[in-house]
């Protein structure tokens, strides 16, 4: 029986490790200086060996994901606080059901939601619409993680604060949140990692863009126009017919994997420190 169980485990682990090995070995050759500093341009650039890279996707990912995070964290933490600290509040049963529903919805539906609400009425794909869609992806994860982290804080801490005569909101902000912070940050990191790998909602909202904007350091250039992100560009490169673009797709895969792995281990480190 143990043999069978070990066999099953190998069946699971080996293919996934093969995937990682492939991504790294196929992509490493395209991962040069140009990759981080030049934009992609048309396919001929890669075919004729002219300098080409993914700077536009890296910058776009940075600005769009950061905007999404800035929007999702306050709302998600607020909803999590509501669920954990005001258990008696009449809104909570509904909030819990809705948050779980949002959490269980496929990411593409979050893209469709923003498409119908933002892209269709304004008539333009934009990085901001992409950030909104990713924000909706992050939001329920952050709310759940916040609730989980707060519910681990012992009640005695709240009681101590209240006994000092502090109002409830001060107790929550000054005593409960700091104790729960490592768990909270981990939750935010998980949400960020999940959203950073999503391509589907971005295809419907920020669309994609092969070029760096005129002013590559200006976030508005990405947020107000169709913009590129790594996962969505990786998809476009992989389904393109050009060999050189496939190599760049593998390289984009390395960057995405590295991002996810770094975020993952930072999160683990934080939770371990807290215990």
């Amino acid at each position, binding site marked *: 029986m143990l043999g069978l*169980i*070990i*066999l*099953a*485990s190998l069946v*699971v*682990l080996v293919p996934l490790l093969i*995937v*990682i090995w*492939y991504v790294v070995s*196929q992509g490493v050759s395209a991962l040069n200086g140009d990759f981080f500093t030049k934009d992609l341009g048309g396919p001929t650039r890669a075919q004729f060996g002219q300098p080409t890279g993914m700077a536009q996707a890296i910058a776009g990912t940075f600005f769009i994901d950061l905007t999404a995070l800035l929007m999702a964290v*306050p*709302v998600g933490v*607020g*909803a999590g606080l*509501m669920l954990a600290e*005001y258990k008696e*509040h009449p*809104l909570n049963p*509904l*909030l819990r059901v*809705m*948050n*779980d*529903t*949002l959490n*269980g*919805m*496929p*990411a*593409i*539906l979050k893209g469709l*939601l923003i498409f*119908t*609400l933002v892209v269709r009425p304004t008539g333009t794909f934009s990085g901001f619409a992409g950030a909104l869609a990713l924000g909706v992806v992050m*939001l329920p994860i952050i*709310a759940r993680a916040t609730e989980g982290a707060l519910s681990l804080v012992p009640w005695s801490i709240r009681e101590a604060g209240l006994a000092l005569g502090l*109002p*409830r*909101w001060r107790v*929550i902000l000054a005593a409960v949140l700091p104790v729960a912070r490592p768990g909270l940050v981990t939750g935010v990191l998980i949400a960020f990692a999940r959203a*950073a790998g*999503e*391509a589907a909602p971005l*295809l*419907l909202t920020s669309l994609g863009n092969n070029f760096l904007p005129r002013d590559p350091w200006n976030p508005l250039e990405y947020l107000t126009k169709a913009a590129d992100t790594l*996962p969505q560009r990786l*998809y476009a*490169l*992989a*389904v393109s017919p050009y060999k050189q673009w*496939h190599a760049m797709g*593998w390289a984009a*895969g390395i960057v*995405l*994997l590295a991002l*996810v*792995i770094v975020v*993952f281990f930072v999160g*683990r480190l934080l939770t371990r420190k807290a215990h």
Partner: protein
Amino acid sequence: MRSLANKGSRFGDTAFLTLLTVLGLVVVGLGVLMAWTLGKEAADPLSRFGLFGFLTGTKWDPVSGVFGAWPVILGTLITSSAALLLSFLPAIGLAILSAEYAPRWLATGIDYVVDLLAAIPSVVLGIWGILVLAPALRDNVYRPIYLWATENAPGQAAWLGNPTGYGLITATLVLALMIVPYTTALARDAIRLVPSEQREAAWGLGATRWEVLRVAVLPYARGGITAGAVLSFGRALGETIAVAMLIGNSVRLPLTLFGPASTMPSIIVNEFREAVDNLHLNSLLAVGFFLFIISLIVNLAAAWVQRRLVPGNEGS
């Protein structure tokens, strides 16, 4: 608690709770908005083809303006169920290994790897599938079988389908890989939650390790494992990018083994940019609406299973 607070802080409490209520309402609002906007856009094709006609129509043809969603619904259900069936036993095996058999250091290692694998973005699996797995399967499996069938069993080639490499089986395999870490993590947590008294009682009766597992642990963890499987199924239903890259994207009834097909999320991603006329776009949004409904049902079912089957949880 409030009686202790002075007037100023009561204002602070009210303001804070109001702020939280507003933020909570944003979450509630987003959920409602999702159902409402998708439903509103879906109204147009639904009134034109009828609810039943849209759901069971087998023809999806943007050129003649006829939209029936049955091929993509069927494609979604087939790939997701097959992926769950393929991945369930290996995932349970890995969960048991990690929760019951492995020494501490190995269990920690397995947990790390599983959680990390769950975090791999689906595009990354997708590029591996489209550039490595699909061509390999085509050259080594599909084409030999197809050629053998055309020579030796000519009647069978029809349901085998065109062996391009991009089709139902390839998409299902990658989908199975994708949900394995998810099923494993949920099953592992369910097994870990089994109280040690359960095990000790079985050990005390002279059960072997396998018997302890079979008699005491697995029945107790059944609810959590089943709920986890249902959630994984929901995950597979909504998985978009990797499937869109691998399934071949043909909006016909998926009646062949190797041939191309489509799923609800994949058709949305694929036809979105080409959907110039409103009926086509709204039909895609209607597919999204039904994807919403199906996901909702699956999530509610998982919650229900969790409540009903987890011991000590029945009353709540």
